């Protein structure tokens, strides 16, 4: 199962390397979202305070777009059906697609943090730089796991139905609310927004990890029944 999952993930990433849809369209979309936030929140010091939340909000929106894309690969030429006929374990499909999705999300998040540093003047506090970076990276990893699992689950459910573009956000956004909350809080601690300190951030990483575990396990169990019948 792991082998097949890796094959699927490698295939997805290779498709992305060839087509560059996410690179050429989703990353710029996320970037312009960040710029748009700046237009909308044009008040003194507001951006600096809300930057961590905006980064994750932009991630959520991009998640929806990437999920659409990752299942468009499968449904464009009936590959999802072919995979079902080939008897590929649905759990392997789930894990494989979630891995590829997670990798793309990580790249996206790194870029968005770069954008936050440039546009919103965020910076890693110098007094505890190492702790901040560790917290930041852990947060990104655990949040991404949860997001990728939920996105893959609902993306697979909606794939192939008419109205999937609208069904996907309706299902996904309420489900990933804990990630938005937890990741924002953890990043606020990491970059020291309004005097938050690094030690406060770890409880949020705990929440994110709990969510990620639940989402991955639940998703792997539910994916088969959801896409296969």
């Amino acid at each position: 199962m792991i082998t097949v999952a890796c094959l699927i993930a490698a295939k997805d990433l290779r498709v992305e390397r060839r087509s560059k849809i996410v690179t050429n369209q989703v990353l710029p979309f996320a970037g312009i979202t960040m710029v748009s936030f700046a237009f909308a929140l044009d008040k003194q010091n507001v951006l600096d305070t809300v930057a961590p939340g905006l980064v994750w909000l932009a991630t959520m929106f991009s998640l929806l777009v990437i999920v659409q894309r990752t299942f468009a690969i499968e449904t464009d030429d009936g590959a999802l059906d072919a995979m079902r006929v080939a008897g590929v374990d649905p759990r392997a499909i789930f894990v494989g697609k979630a891995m590829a999705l997670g990798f793309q999300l990580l790249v996206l998040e790194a870029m968005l943090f770069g954008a936050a540093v440039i546009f919103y003047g965020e910076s890693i506090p110098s007094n505890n730089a190492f702790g901040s970076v560790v917290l930041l990276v852990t947060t990104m990893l655990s949040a991404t796991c949860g997001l990728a699992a939920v996105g893959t689950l609902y993306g697979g459910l909606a794939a192939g139905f008419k109205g999937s573009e609208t069904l996907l956000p309706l299902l996904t956004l309420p489900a990933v609310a804990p990630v938005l909350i937890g990741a924002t809080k953890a990043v606020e601690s990491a970059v020291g927004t309004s005097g938050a300190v690094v030690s406060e951030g770890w409880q949020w990483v705990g929440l994110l990890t709990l969510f990620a575990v639940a989402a991955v396990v639940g998703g792997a169990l539910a994916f088969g029944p959801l896409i296969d019948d």
Partner: protein
Amino acid sequence: MNASLNPFSSASATANDDPFVGNTSNNTEPDLVIALKDVVAVLGNFPALAGVSITVQRGEIVLLKGPNGAGKTTLLRLCAGLLPVERGAATILGFDLVTQRQLVRPHVGLLGHQNGLYLDLSVRENVEFWGRTVGASAHEIAGAMSRMGVSGRLADVGVRKLSAGQKRRTSLACLVARRAQVWLLDEPHAGLDAAGRDELDATLGQAANSGATILVASHELERAGGLATRSVDVVAGQAITDSNESQGTE
């Protein structure tokens, strides 16, 4: 479940040179591969299959004829385990399609209107992906590609750039690499040039000889008719004629 009908039990164990099917049990008697009885299948609220009864023996090449909308495609998708059986009884390779259609899938190969290919990957990458998901060896994958004439220069071309016929051949190569027992082909000749058609026919004949069972839905009666061991008329969601023209191999 009939053990002799379970092809994967011995497929991985025996070294089999035949690229088409994993296991060819030396069947002196023809096995029943497909047995449908009064099968109804729905697409939305529409009964695409309105009571199909059909039986197919191992090694047969059955031609499904009929106008568009008669239910040929639905019949093939049902046999592939993609659609639920709404009513009736159906068995494929000893698996009950009503209760365990997921188990049927690994043993059948479906070439539908869509090819099931990744357009951004090359021919080789596609065949390798589909072969490796079911554990085919590099040798088998190479064999499948050369058999379908997509090795060599074509192998590294992106599928998006291929002609319709070349895509079809790639898709067939994926089926071969997957070692399907039952081949379900929906208009396989569509878009193929003359050479491609000959190649396809030869492949189908060879596959049937080595024990694969093939259902072909086709408009091109002369083409497919010569190849088929018998033909079935599909009309308004039912298999009307079940005419035994000849039995066995050609």
